[in-house]
């Protein structure tokens, strides 16, 4: 259905012409499509995407002024919401439009929130979590009465996470409250627009896709660095002089890193070599809000020449005059690279400029493959499976908070959401049963059910006071357990956060990097890490969790294609020689075969398997292999994994590797291994929190209640022992196939190689395996081995302390 082209009301037309602006074709098209039930706009950064989303709203409200909420805007970032408010305010004020815009996020004060519920603005800017919270209120129907449009920004990013699944369930709810609701999704360039459209659509209604002109091809290449990249590691520090040179030659440069720890280290070293004292800042998610806002303000004011940053800057915040993007370390997927490139030249029709700095020799190959993919315009998108059930459980609880509901109606509503369009009734009922009774084989809670069915058949909270607890646990974002870091002393400045596990390894006097400065650990007080500035010059590095990106399937495939070439004229001589040597002394890894190398080194047997399945899957493969090696008694001692290979060291050599890579054995091993694995326990904990089994822990609770609260690991072990088919264990296994465990990609590797194993036995380390010896992140083998290490450590301590054993 297409309405006749809507003429723009004159105040908006006049405002555009005084600015000398002409609408882009896709902005015009969005106006024309304004009456459609759902529209997805794909446009490159800088294409006036946000205005495209809001133009129909501005036009409708100007043509027919009214009270009440008209448009809801949802973005993944709080910062984006406030940014958009500023940007929208300009035309509204200058053209004097009768429109009120407000944002509502976790940062909005209690008074403002209350007022917004009583008297909603015309346009409300919010996040998926704040929307879920609004929907949980009993007066949700009143708050959203009259809502016409919802605009989902950066939908490509949301579609990759549970936050997006939750948002789509929220939209399904909104659609029931406001049947005429129209949806708009704004997306950066993506591989499969139809998948995002299916995600956004209100099923079975269609979703129209509008493609904006992608603009000129980006100017993208490797940064020319005279020094050779090192053999291993991810820092890219060898390139600092060249990076400083590039910063000097441009107005503003964004320097992206893949992890926070790398950003910290790079920033520190950059300053040591910054002889011209160029103003350079750092921005990442572990820094305190105060520090981040300071950098953001300086950036907007044009006071900074460069910012060292991570994914916290990935999304479309308006950073003004960026004219160069430098990516340090291989971009683990091409899509991310393209989106980062989009940060440069935030003006339509000007080519973006980006330079890549491979952090090590192998990444040089990876970067070449990524550049080829960008030139070919092939993005990678690993399709996500159906919507996860833990998110559905939370949604059922949110709905229950707002009032009694009918299960049939809720099922019908939920299956209009893209991620849940294929959900079966049995699966839905299992989630409802979990919310109501815990869903255990042992029916223990009949008297204390969380949800009860009333005589009219509708479901409601048994105890309405439970709503408060459900609201407190809303959302699907998992904070790793982090501790705030503060300078010691009265009103010490907050510096950021570190993982609790990292903090636990610190003893007073240890130093680490945060916010680009070296600080000294002084002690832990009220769950805050206290530090002083008296740092040495060799910091112990903070092991920020960050996000461990794995190389995407498509990029891995391109790398394998590249390795298959007879020669590599495009690569620098040092890398070309390295690959040629590998081919001469061993084999080159191939797509359809699994290369295994065995060689002795340093008095130990080594086995290297080139699976090219991405870091997470290779790590899992390492755990499974060492488990099997322990079974056959060759004494595995540890392993290290990268995106392309896993290297295992053991007491005795592995003589016949092929049986270890049988699919059935690996799968069986996987099931056993799930039992004790820390990653699985973490996965379980996240799903248990999302599904509402356990509470999120606030720092206050942790401080006071250590003795009373117990680890979710105990729940995991107990369920596995007594109720192995419980819904949450099903969900945990499902999650394990993607994400951190990523068994799905091991399956892919098995399907690709089909048992064709090339075992090469050599008398020394091979060229491709050599960098693995320098990789950080070595994993000692757990289990019997760990118990032995623990016993040794205990004995050593007793001895050191001079106590009799």
């Amino acid at each position, binding site marked *: 259905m297409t309405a006749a082209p809507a003429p723009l009301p004159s105040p908006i037309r006049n405002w555009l012409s005084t600015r000398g602006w002409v609408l882009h074709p896709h902005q015009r098209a969005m106006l024309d499509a304004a009456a459609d039930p759902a529209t997805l706009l794909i446009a490159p950064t800088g294409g006036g995407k946000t205005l495209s989303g809001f133009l129909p709203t501005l036009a409708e409200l100007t043509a027919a002024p009214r009270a009440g909420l008209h448009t809801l805007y949802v973005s993944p970032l709080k910062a984006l919401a406030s940014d958009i408010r500023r940007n929208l305010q300009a035309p509204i004020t200058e053209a004097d439009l009768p429109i009120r815009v407000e944002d509502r996020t976790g940062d909005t004060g209690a008074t403002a929130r209350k007022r917004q519920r009583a008297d909603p603005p015309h346009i409300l800017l919010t996040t998926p979590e704040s929307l879920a919270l609004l929907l949980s209120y009993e007066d949700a129907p009143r708050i959203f009465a009259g809502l016409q449009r919802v605009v989902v920004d950066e939908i490509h990013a949301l579609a990759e996470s549970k936050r997006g699944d939750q948002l789509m369930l929220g939209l399904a709810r909104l659609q029931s409250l406001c049947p005429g609701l129209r949806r708009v999704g704004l997306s950066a360039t993506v591989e499969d627009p139809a998948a995002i459209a299916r995600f956004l659509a209100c099923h079975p209604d269609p979703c129209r896709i509008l493609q904006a002109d992608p603009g000129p091809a980006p100017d993208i290449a490797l940064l020319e660095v005279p020094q050779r990249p090192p053999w291993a590691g991810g820092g890219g520090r060898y390139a600092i002089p060249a990076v400083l040179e590039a910063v000097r030659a441009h107005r503003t440069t964004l320097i992206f890193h893949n992890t926070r720890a790398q950003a910290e280290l790079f920033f520190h070293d950059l300053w040591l070599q910054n002889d011209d004292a160029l103003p350079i800042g750092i921005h990442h998610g572990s820094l305190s809000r105060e520090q981040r806002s300071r950098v953001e303000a300086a950036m907007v004011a044009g006071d900074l020449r460069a910012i060292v940053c991570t994914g916290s800057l990935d999304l479309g915040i308006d950073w003004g005059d960026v004219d160069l993007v430098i990516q340090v370390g291989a971009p683990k997927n091409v899509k991310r690279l393209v989106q980062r490139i989009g940060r440069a030249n935030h003006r339509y029709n000007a080519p973006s400029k980006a330079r890549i700095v491979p952090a090590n020799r192998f990444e040089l190959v990876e970067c070449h493959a990524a550049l080829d993919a960008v030139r070919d315009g092939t993005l990678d998108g690993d399709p996500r499976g159906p919507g996860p059930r833990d998110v559905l459980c939370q949604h059922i609880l949110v709905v229950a908070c707002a009032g009694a509901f009918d299960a049939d109606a809720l099922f019908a509503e939920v299956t209009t959401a893209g991620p849940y369009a294929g959900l079966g009734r049995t699966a839905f009922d299992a989630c409802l049963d979990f919310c109501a009774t*815990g869903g255990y084989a042992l029916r*223990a809670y009949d008297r*204390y059910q969380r949800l009860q069915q009333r005589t009219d058949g509708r479901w409601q909270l048994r105890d309405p006071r439970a709503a408060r607890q459900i609201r407190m646990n809303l959302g699907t974002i998992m904070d790793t357990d982090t501790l705030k870091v503060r300078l010691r002393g009265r009103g010490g400045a907050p510096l950021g956060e570190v993982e609790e596990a990292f903090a636990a390894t610190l003893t007073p006097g240890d130093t680490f990097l945060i916010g680009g400065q070296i600080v000294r650990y002084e*002690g832990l007080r009220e769950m805050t890490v206290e530090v002083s500035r008296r740092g040495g010059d060799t910091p112990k590095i903070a092991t920020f969790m960050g996000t461990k990106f794995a190389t995407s399937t498509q990029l891995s495939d391109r790398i394998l294609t590249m390795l298959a070439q007879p020669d590599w004229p495009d690569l620098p001589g040092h890398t070309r020689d390295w690959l040629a040597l590998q081919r001469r002394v061993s084999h080159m890894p191939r797509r359809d075969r699994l290369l295994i190398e065995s060689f002795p080194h340093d008095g130990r047997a080594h086995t290297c398997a080139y699976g090219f399945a991405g870091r997470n899957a290779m790590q899992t493969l390492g755990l499974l292999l060492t488990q099997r090696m322990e079974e056959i008694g060759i004494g595995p001692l540890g392993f290290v994994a990268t995106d392309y290979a896993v290297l295992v060291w053991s007491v005795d050599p592995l003589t016949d590797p092929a049986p270890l890579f049988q699919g059935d054995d690996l799968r069986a091993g996987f099931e056993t291994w799930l039992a004790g694995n820390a990653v699985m326990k973490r996965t379980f904990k996240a799903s248990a929190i999302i599904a509402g089994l356990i509470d999120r822990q606030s720092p206050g609770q942790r401080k006071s209640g250590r003795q009373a609260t117990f680890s979710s690991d*105990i729940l995991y072990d107990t369920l596995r*022992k007594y*109720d192995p088919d419980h819904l949450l264990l099903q969900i945990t296994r499902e999650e394990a196939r993607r994400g951190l465990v990523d068994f799905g990609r091991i399956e892919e590797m098995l399907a690709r190689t089909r048992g064709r194993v090339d075992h090469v036995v050599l008398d020394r380390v091979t060229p491709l395996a050599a960098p693995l010896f320098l990789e950080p992140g070595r994993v000692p083998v757990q289990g019997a081995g760990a*118990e032995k*290490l623990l016993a040794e450590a205990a004995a050593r*301590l007793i001895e050191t302390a001079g106590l009799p054993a």
Partner: protein
Amino acid sequence: MRCEQSMNDYTFTLGGAELHARPSGALWWPSKGLLCVSDLHFGKAARIARRSGGMLPPYEGQDTLDRLEAELDATGARHVICLGDSFDDMQAAGSLPEDLGAWLLRLIAGRDWAWVEGNHDPGPIDLPGTHRAEIALGPLVFRHIAQPGAEGEVSGHYHPKARLGFRGGAVARPCFLIDGRRVVLPAFGTYTGGLCSTSPVLCALMDDDARAVMTGSAAHAIPMPRVLRRRA
């Protein structure tokens, strides 16, 4: 007397009595044939459901009894002391599910069984066995909460745990705290958390030469981890 003394026990003397800290978290006194467990917290999941609506896997009573029975079998204990907080609250003590109640009665039958009161279960409970605020036996006194200045004292209550870092990792486990005057038992119940040995209350309670004996597949003794005092 049947006594399968595990190689994995940690053996120590307190007030002249030879005691075994078992990897399970139970305390074994071979010469008396006495097994002592603390903080079983039966009924914890049910109490949480009643109070807050959270519905944790309702199998913790079963698991606690499984492990308790295994300890009774392994040691052949004739005498059992449950050192307080056996029940998560008085209501749990009165409403143990039928199958668990029968199981517990079967374990009690034929043994000299004593319930020491805890802060969670301060009153008399409707189960066989003696009910006491504390029990003095030979050189030892068994009570739920340690008293400063006591000698030869066996107590529970704090659910102590200790953390040990080693090459490539670290573990935190429930532990016994032992010095020349007392032993504090870890919690034996399945749904129990722990209080870190570095907490001020445990540091103040235990002597400077105290050890932590970590539970697990074997009992490992280490010097009790404490917070380092910073010199000004």
